[in-house]
Every structure is written in structure tokens, then in C-alpha cells.
């Protein structure tokens, strides 16, 4: 179902909702297209006319400044018109249904929805019910998926490690609530890494994590042993209030990334984080700002990857000249 929903009959990307069901070839095409856009940000004129005349709506049912901004920049650099809708504070809270919001925007002849929503499956729902000429990009739905974040992480890993084969990757922290982790796991496995480990206390791992193609571990020192990539996840403060964890300091003791713990990884291991980081909760400042950290590169790569996905879904393949 995902396959059909996301792809055209010719196997091209129509929507970008989830990594599930996408081939290694297609994921590589996204990375290659992003590669061709990566230089643009450094040009004096940071724009290409690929999406001139297209209207992209950032439909954010959940607040997020960072993700929305990179989508906005990506769209602007492709010369599209961008409309930002922060619905978290407007229409749906007045009782307007998701579908009515979509119908209203459709009537304004837009070409793409970039959707963020607090509930799993929201982007799928919109893709299923929107007019056929509109593409939908999932910018994060509940605990389900955040595929552009996963692809920018893959892009960053490829930049540093050149290939995926043979890599050992550890994802650390709140896997249970993380749409980022779910998408990363699918992308890493599709691209053919050797091993994906997830490291967390049992309270923050999904019930059937074993069926997700990962090795679950609870001791961080053991989990980081010999890995090429360490991905830290953000810990939401509200997890302390619902008996997932006793305290931030205890979490940091067990699962916070420090220089000492990082020594278990390969000497050239890179450290990633989808941001925004909680210093002293999931990562020590000395690591976040240290030589192995690629956290800020992830942010810049995010724009190129989102430009790639936008052009591919709107039918312009091949990227910039």
C-alpha cells in the first residue's frame, strides 16, 4: 500500500511519506540528487529556477521552527512560492477537520504539502485524500516517520563514510517515541549497513523492537563498541513525568554520550543528532562541539536533501546542472 501510495505507476516518487517500501536504488537517487544541490548554498546566487511557479504549503500541525525553516529555505532556493501554515494554533483548534483544511488549501491551487502532525499516519491520510496533482512530503507524523530527516542523516553518513556496506551504526536514546529512529532504521537497512544497534533502557524501546531489524542493547559502553556512526536522539523532558525515566541525570549517567563512552567507538566514528540537542542530558557539550561531531553539517545537508525530494516528487529529475 505504501509502495503504491508513494510511487507513480512508473516507479517515480510521487509523495515522500515513509522510507518503507522504497528501494535502495531510489534512496540512492535521492542522495545523488541532493549531492547535486549541495553546492548551490555556497553560490552567490543561491537559487535555481526548477520549481518556479509552483506553490508549496508548509502545513505544520505541530510547532517546529527548525524543520519548517529548512523546508522553507529548500523551497525558496528552488524558486517556489512558499506558504507557511501553522495550524497548531489556528484552524483545527477551531473544530475544522484535517480534511476541510486540506480541501480549502487545494482550492487555492497549490502543488505540494509539507506536513508535520502529532499523530502517526497523518501524512498518509492527507496523501490518500488530496487531489491527484498534489505531492505530499512527510515532515514528521507522530511516532511513525520523518523520512527527510533520515535521508539527510544518510547523506551525512555517506559524505563521511563513502559507502554503507560494512558500517555499524548505533542509535541511542528514546527509540520508542522517535519517528526519526524508525525512519533511520529503515533507511540504514535498505542501504545495506552491516548492523544497526539501538541502545536504550527498556522503557524507551518499542515492545517488538527485535522485529524492526535492529539489535537492542541496554548498556551503552557495550553498544558503542566498534561502531562507525553514533546517532543520539533528543530526549523529551516530559518523559520524566510519565515514569519512563527517573531523572535526566540518571539518563545522562547511563545513556548520555561523553568523551569516555565515545572511546568505545571506532576512532573515526562520527557523532550525529537530529537536534535540537539537550546538552548534559543526552550528550556532553564537549562531544557535541568536538571533532567527531557532524551535527551542524546535518543541518546544512537538510536543505539539499529537501530540495532533492521536492524536485523529485514534483517531477523534475536530475537536479541542478
Amino acid at each position, binding site marked *: 500500500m505504501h509502495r503504491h501510495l508513494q510511487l507513480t505507476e512508473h516507479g517515480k516518487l510521487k509523495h515522500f511519506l515513509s522510507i518503507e517500501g522504497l528501494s535502495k536504488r531510489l534512496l540512492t537517487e535521492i542522495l545523488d540528487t541532493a549531492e547535486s544541490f549541495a553546492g548551490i548554498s555556497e553560490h552567490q546566487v543561491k537559487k535555481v529556477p526548477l520549481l518556479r511557479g509552483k506553490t508549496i504549503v508548509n502545513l505544520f500541525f505541530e510547532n517546529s521552527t527548525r524543520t519548517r525553516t529548512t523546508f522553507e529555505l529548500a523551497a525558496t532556493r528552488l524558486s517556489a512560492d512558499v506558504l507557511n501554515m501553522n495550524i497548531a494554533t489556528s484552524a483545527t483548534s477551531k473544530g475544522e477537520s*484535517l480534511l476541510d483544511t486540506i480541501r480549502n488549501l487545494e482550492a487555492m491551487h497549490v502543488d505540494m504539502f509539507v506536513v508535520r502532525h502529532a499523530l502517526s499516519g497523518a501524512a498518509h491520510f492527507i496523501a490518500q485524500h488530496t487531489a491527484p496533482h498534489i505531492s505530499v512530503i512527510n515532515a514528521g507524523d507522530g511516532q511513525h516517520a520523518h523520512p527527510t530527516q533520515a535521508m539527510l542523516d544518510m547523506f551525512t553518513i555517506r559524505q563521511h563514510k563513502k559507502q554503507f556496506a560494512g558500517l555499524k551504526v548505533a542509535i541511542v536514546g528514546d527509540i520508542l517515541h522517535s519517528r526519526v529512529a524508525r525512519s533511520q532504521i529503515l533507511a540504514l537497512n535498505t542501504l545495506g549497513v552491516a548492523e544497526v544497534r539501538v541502545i536504550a533502557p527498556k522503557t524507551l524501546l518499542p515492545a517488538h523492537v527485535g522485529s524492526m531489524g535492529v539489535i537492542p542493547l541496554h548498556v551503552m559502553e557495550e553498544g558503542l563498541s566498534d561502531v562507525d556512526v553514533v546517532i543520539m536522539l533528543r530526549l523529551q523532558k516530559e518523559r520524566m513525568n510519565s515514569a519512563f525515566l527517573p531523572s535526566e541525570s540518571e539518563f545522562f549517567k547511563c545513556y548520555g554520550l561523553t568523551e569516555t563512552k565515545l572511546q568505545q567507538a571506532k576512532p573515526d566514528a562520527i557523532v550525529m543528532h537530529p537536534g535540537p540537542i539537550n546538552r548534559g542530558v543526552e550528550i556532553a557539550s564537549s562531544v557535541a562541539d568536538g571533532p567527531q561531531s557532524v551535527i551542524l553539517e546535518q543541518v546544512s545537508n537538510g536543505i539539499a536533501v529537501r530540495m532533492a525530494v521536492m524536485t523529485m516528487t514534483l517531477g523534475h529529475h536530475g537536479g541542478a546542472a
Partner: protein
Amino acid sequence: MTKILIENGRIIDPANAVDAVGSLCIADGKILQVLTPPADFTPDLTINAKGQIVCPGFIDLSARLREPGHSQKGTIKSETRAALSAGVTSLCLPPDTKPCIDSPAVVEYIKDKAEAADYPRVYSIGALTQRLDGTELSSMFALKQAGCIAVSNAHAPLGNLLILRRAMEYAGTHGLLLMCRANEASLSGKGCAHEGAMASQYGLPGIPVAAESIALAQALELAQLTGCRMHVSQISCKQSVIKIQQAKKYGLNVTADAAIHQLHLSENDVLPFDSHYHVIPPFRSEEDGHYLREGLANGTIDAICSDHQPHDLDAKLGAFPETEPGIASLETLLPLTLELTSLHRIDLHKTLAALTQKPAAILGLQAGALTPGFSADVCIFDPDLPWQVNEQTWHSAGRNTPYWQQSLIGKVTHTIQGGRLLYKFRNR
């Protein structure tokens, strides 16, 4: 009144251990004679049931009709039509209407509506607590006098175990059956799917099986303590089957049912984010389904119910977790029950008993059997007739079923309630 002769059908009546081809005679609204008609019987209406099965009308332990309070989803009129087309001649209405069934006035209202809809056998289940809010006992004696057949708190949680204990004692005082949907709300939380591989993969908030089995264990302990006659509604997992089996083994007077779709579908069948699969309790693992079917085959699970919950379109339009749970399931009850035999090799007599004799016994109704003198509630169905679930064949106002547009085998052709032919299938 009309005299009806049903001839050449295969008569299956589990309560009377009948399975033979023959005739069924109905007169004065009652079953007159089974297998051979009396010599002087002159029917006003003859139904040739050749190739079909004639059995007692089905008794559904849980079907929501959406009235009063949710008539955008269905009405007593529309849903009792659906019931008749499904061979269901008696049904129990859970108390979570709006207002809920916590006063005789609501019971009377439902009774009036049911009579106006020409379907008198709607049995109201009274609310266990006032407003279903789980804190104060409802006026169970008054509810019983008004016609409630049992009491239940439906899906609403109870404040604490002491309230459940008192409710059991009080229901027992008035000889009322207590129907219990086992759920520990603190464990199920905002879950919308089985806490298993599927929910893990799609990031859907999960409901662990322990939310059901822990609540069930507590309820069984209290039933033991209070001597309350308890029926457990819509169990969904292996642990519940085992607990009921043990309780029965040690002599507790407890019965249980499962919803028909739980006997067929598992989490693996759920199409990603398709809200038609959003149901509570959620579709569990393959193993749970296997245990449920085994429980039905060995008698641990006494009855099959539809757990019919029709919805309007809007209720199912949205992101999966925000849609309303429930399946419109009356009309797929028979074909899915037949599939338990064709696909899973469960004895047809057992599955038909789970729709007739067993629920009648649970409710203490003189029904669910083709015993001479009993009210003539009869279902005739063609076990081999394929039909498609679509606008042409469907009667319920709710089209929320995962089986929409699918082909199923087995169709009710005639439904007789109180000796009156109220439904006849027209192959359109």
C-alpha cells in the same frame, strides 16, 4: 397468524441436537413441529429451503444501534434492518448510548423505538454505574424492572476495584448478569493498536495484552469472592482464554464471548493506517487469534458476537489514532462464522451453537432453539452463496468494515422473528 412451512432444508438446531433434512412448521408465532409436518398442516406460506440451512435465529450479545444520541451513525430502524438481514433475531444493546442506559426512561425509549422499527427483541444492557462514570452504582433494580437483561460498564473504566466488588454484589442481589469488558485503563492509555510488531513499526500507541488480562484476572477474583454471575465480553488474547479456561475448570460460573472479526484478523492483516482496522480491543497477534479459535472450539469461549459498531464517514476520516474505533459487523457475522468451519475446521454445530443456544443460555432467554412452543425465531441461509459487500447488499448505515468490496460466502436468505417473515434476500 400465518402458518409457515419451511421444507427441504437442512435443519441444524444445536440445542436439540438436530441435524437432518426435513421440514419446519411454524404456527401462531411459535415453532410447531420439526422435521415432519403434522398431517393436517395447511401453510399460508411455503419456503423451499433446498440446499440451505435452517437454524434458530442468531442472538447477538453486543450490537450498537447508535440510538439514542448518535443517530448520524445509525438508527434503531436502520441497524435492526441490518440485524434481520444478518439472521440476528435478538440482540443486546450496550449501555453507552447518549444519554446512557442508566435510567428506566432510556430503556423505555429504546423499547418504543424498537417496537416502532418492528424489531421487538432489542435487549438493553443497563449501565453498571450512573452516567457510566465508574463511581456510583446505577439503579439496577429499576433498570431490571424496566427490562434490562444485564448490566455493564461498556468500555468506560471503573473508579477502583471496590466499586467493581460492590457492583457485583449489588447486581447479584437482584439476579442481574454482569457483563464485563476487561480493560485496565492505565495500561491501555491512549493506545489504538495491539502492542506488537505492527504498532512498533508504524509508531502507533500500543495496547498491551496485559491491559486486558490483568483486568480480567481481577474481575475473575472478585466474581469468585462475590459469587456474581459474570460474562466476559469480547476477549482478544491468549492470556484471557487461558484465564477463563482455568476459572471454568475450578468451577466458577463464568462465560465469555469474542467478536467475530477477532477470530479472523490479526495485526498482520491491518493495512497501514487504514482506519477500518481501528477497533477496540485491537487486532492481536496470530498466536492470540489461534488461541481464540481454539477457545471457541473447546468451549472456553461460549459465544460469538458481532460487536457491531456502525460509524458515519467522518468518524473514520483522519489520522489512524484520532479515528473512532469499531467495525460495522452484523452483516459479515454469518459468512465469517462459516469461514471458521471452512478455513479453520471448527465444527459447524459448535459455531452455530455459539450464535444461538449459548448466548440464549447466557442471557437466560427461552430462545436460540427450534423447540416446539418456543417463539419462532428462525434463520435460513445459503452456506455456499457468494456475495459482495457493497452498497447493493448492505443494510447498516455504517460502511466501516475492512471487508468492504470483498466477496464472502454464505448469505442469509430468510429471517423469521416471532413467526413473521421479516427479511427475504433478493438477489439484485
